[in-house]
């Protein structure tokens, strides 16, 4: 339809074509520019922190010693979340794809998606007012019986507002991501592989370990990476649930801090150097999540042709 004969037949509407394709192209480029701008503007605003006198930065020893404990805190919270959410999320995905009655499966998938729809601030409020008080007895039990392990060193927090509670809330928020992505991939397992395993007399679990999981491994890895990206960047759940403090190994005492929560809690009162410090912290978070997401997307892209995940 773009031959010259047709082009020449009438110029009416040609301007429309140009405007339309130009607008579409412009919108696409705008997205690339935006992503670049995120990095550039954060860098501009963060710059004073890196050039400032180290004694003026919070903590008095320069930006690195300020950011390092909260990066570790962020990683701890995300690690707890993934340790809980990965096995549960994969099992729930298996339940929906291979165990639940077929008629229920779609509805159950929707119920799990509802978990993702609940706003994070409500999870935060729930963690603060319901989950944290409910976990206090368990923390005390851990401190009494496993207190010799540095992770569970007592005395346990009396409010339950610890990094472990925050990790559990994060796990709930990450779970639907891992579940929905894994489920998509489990459903794409070649039916012949499954039936061949069953025909050889495999039990259902053997069929899953022999045909479904090997097929889905790259998809599961990328699902977990995407969940990690979400857990690292989640703000409100941690800001509300965690009673912050310096970096400590114990998971059941109040203490530790994550980047996102540090920004949210301090930003409203921040100005001057403190402001650019927080923006620099945001830049660090951006880079970390960007790397995690790039790895996840690269894994998906490499296996795209046969897994179909996106």
């Amino acid at each position, binding site marked *: 339809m773009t031959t010259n004969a047709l082009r020449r037949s009438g110029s009416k509407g040609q301007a429309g074509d140009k405007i339309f394709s130009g607008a579409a192209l412009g919108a*696409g480029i705008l997205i690339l520019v935006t992503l670049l701008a995120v990095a550039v503007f954060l860098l501009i605003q963060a710059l004073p922190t890196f050039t400032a006198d180290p004694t003026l930065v919070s903590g008095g020893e320069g930006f690195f010693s300020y950011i390092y404990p909260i990066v570790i805190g962020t990683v701890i919270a995300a690690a707890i979340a993934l340790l809980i959410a990965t096995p549960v999320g994969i099992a729930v995905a298996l339940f929906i794809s291979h165990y639940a009655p077929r008629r229920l499966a779609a509805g159950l998938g929707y119920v799990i998606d*509802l978990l993702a729809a609940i706003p994070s601030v409500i999870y*935060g409020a729930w963690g603060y007012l319901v989950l944290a008080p409910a976990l206090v007895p368990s923390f005390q039990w851990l401190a009494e019986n496993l207190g010799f392990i540095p992770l569970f060193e007592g005395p346990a927090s009396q409010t339950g507002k610890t990094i472990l509670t925050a990790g559990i809330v994060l796990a709930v928020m990450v779970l639907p991501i891992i579940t929905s992505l894994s489920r998509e991939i489990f459903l794409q397992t070649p039916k012949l592989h499954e039936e061949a395993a069953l025909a050889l007399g495999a039990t259902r*679990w053997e069929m899953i370990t022999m045909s479904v999981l090997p097929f889905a491994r790259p998809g599961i890895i990328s699902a977990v990476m995407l969940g990690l990206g979400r857990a690292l*960047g989640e703000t409100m759940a941690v800001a509300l649930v965690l009673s912050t403090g310096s970096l400590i190994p114990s998971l059941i005492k109040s203490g530790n801090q994550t980047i996102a929560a540090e920004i949210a809690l301090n930003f409203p009162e921040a100005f001057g150097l403190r402001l650019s410090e927080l923006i620099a912290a*945001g830049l660090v978070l*951006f880079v970390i999540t960007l790397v995690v*997401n790039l790895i996840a997307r690269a894994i998906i892209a490499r296996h795209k042709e046969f897994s179909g995940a996106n």
Partner: protein
Amino acid sequence: MNAVTANKLPNDSRQQPGKPPVARKRNSLSKGLLPRWAAPGIAVGSLILGAAASTLGGFSVASFAIYAAVIFVVASAIITTLVEGPRRGRNALATHLVYAAFLLALIPLASVLFTVLQKGLPGINTHFLFHSMNGITGAADNASVEDGTPVLGGAYHAVLGTLLITLWSTLISVPVGMLTAIYLVEYGKNGPLARGITFFVDVMTGIPSIVAGLFATALFAVIMGPTARMGIVAAVALSVLMIPTVVRSTEEMLKIVPNELREAAYALGVRKWRTIAKVVIPTAISGIASGVTLAIARVIGETAPILVTAGLANNINVNVFGNWMATLPTFIYYQILTPTSPTNVDPSIQRAWAAALLLIAMVMVLNLGARLIAGLFAPKKGR
């Protein structure tokens, strides 16, 4: 997952209805398998043992459920292993763990919804819905606790702020997102630029919401000075989060529009942009609308970007281009974290839960609305 899979499982032969356990002895297929009453039997046994174990350390429903579930999973695995062999034992263990994981995942959902309903309903009334927090001080809250008068102050300003900021971010994201998707599907043709955009849209999906907020603040700080906090900054921040969702859903929908429709339009001499505007988009509009609704549902509950962009207001502000604005999520956050009256926190907590109920109702309505739009007006896929 299909019905065939379930029926082909060897140990399902014991579950055929109408066969009395007596038949087991004569049927060579069911030899060496547990009788049909084994699973319910083990369940009853573990309920009793679980109750006994939980009373030892002070009875509670939670510990009872945990003990009973653990005993059931372990006992049925051991018994199956003893009777049917280790392979079936592992299978039984895995099956029960998968079921347990699903039930475990439902607990937080049920708990959150129950808590929000239980604590939010008492706070919902016309005063709450149609009054702001303007002029509500700690003294008013103290008075309502001490004298038992109704809690004053509401979330009207926050509801307005939420709606306005979401509206503006929708106005920004929908054109940009849809045009990008049109470029990707109709013009890009999988070229290097289109592939790059697809990749970075995926990456953008993973931007932490607070970083999007910081970006908008930094952007407006460069343009307008460091203290620019207002509704439109928040709308820009939310757009950064919303655009990738809109692009992805629109792209998926445009891809399933049958090529025959486009070719038919071209054959009639219709220009490409008219084809897209009059044929392609109307065909996919229900899916696009549903995707946009889901994207709105995603950003309407965002707190962190609002926190760093729009500040916090107690009064009604309908001007997104000036002064601070409150939204429901930040209202909840501040009511919990910094109660209006530090000595009597109950009125603040009540307002927070009532606002949470409002917010969750909005999100659920948007989610269900998206499903309805997609279901009712779904295009014929032509395949």
